[in-house]
């Protein structure tokens, strides 16, 4: 590859890598949110069943 081509590839490559890294960060955030909502859902279910229990 000529020098010019190397740099063009580098520029586009950097942009592509950035998008992928950003997607990965969002993915980890999504999985954290999923886990937290799961916990809350369990807590809520435990709460409602407890209410019905002594309701």
């Amino acid at each position, binding site marked *: 590859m000529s020098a010019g081509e190397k740099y*063009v590839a580098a*520029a586009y490559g950097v942009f592509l890598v950035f998008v992928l890294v950003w997607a990965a960060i969002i993915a980890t955030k999504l999985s954290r949110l999923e886990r937290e909502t799961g916990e809350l859902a369990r807590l809520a279910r435990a709460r409602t069943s407890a209410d019905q229990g002594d309701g």
Partner: protein
Amino acid sequence: MSITRPSLSALAAFAVALAAASVLMTFFVAPEDADQGLSQKIFYVHVPIALTAYACFGLGAWKALRLLLTRGERYDLESYTGIHQGTIFGALTLVTGSIWAKASWGVWWTWSSNQLVLFLVLFLFYCAYFMLRFSIEPGPQRERISAVYALFGVALIPVSFFAIRLASDFIHPTVFTRDGPQMTGSMFAAFCTSWAAITLLAYVMYRTELAGKRTDVNLRDLREALAR
């Protein structure tokens, strides 16, 4: 999510389509630049990223102004996310800009490219935004101080632009900046598609991050409600 605004996934799909179109046009339709040759192709991605960074800083400042005028809490997250996007694209501008500088002038950094220097100043400024934001207790005062700082940022952009132009007169008398290559029809078309694609991509990222942050807030309220 109000129904009038197009859904996120539709926007994302459109952004991807535009990106593909711009790559095709950049490399297969637009002719190579007469003297710079292939390395000029970096222009099609570097300049749109810079313009998108400006747009994000502008969005952040606009939401900040709305927060100060209407005290609406939702604007704080929007302003914060907008500036977060702007800073990311600002960093990208610096990286792609230095690659372009290496390709066309053989140096990784040059003080004579006014736009690069401007982004360096803005990058310093907006990094301090996050330092400021994370050293104040969450609450109305933090929202207002962040908003004021965001407004200062958007005032700093034109002022710094002039300052750097004035500075380049006495720092580098021999100046060889490129004032934007002359573009034929198809080059301009490729540039516009690329610009639209990157701007749209930034908006999709903005909306996605915003959704994530709002979910965090909702979760915290839920957790507090359930804990009681």
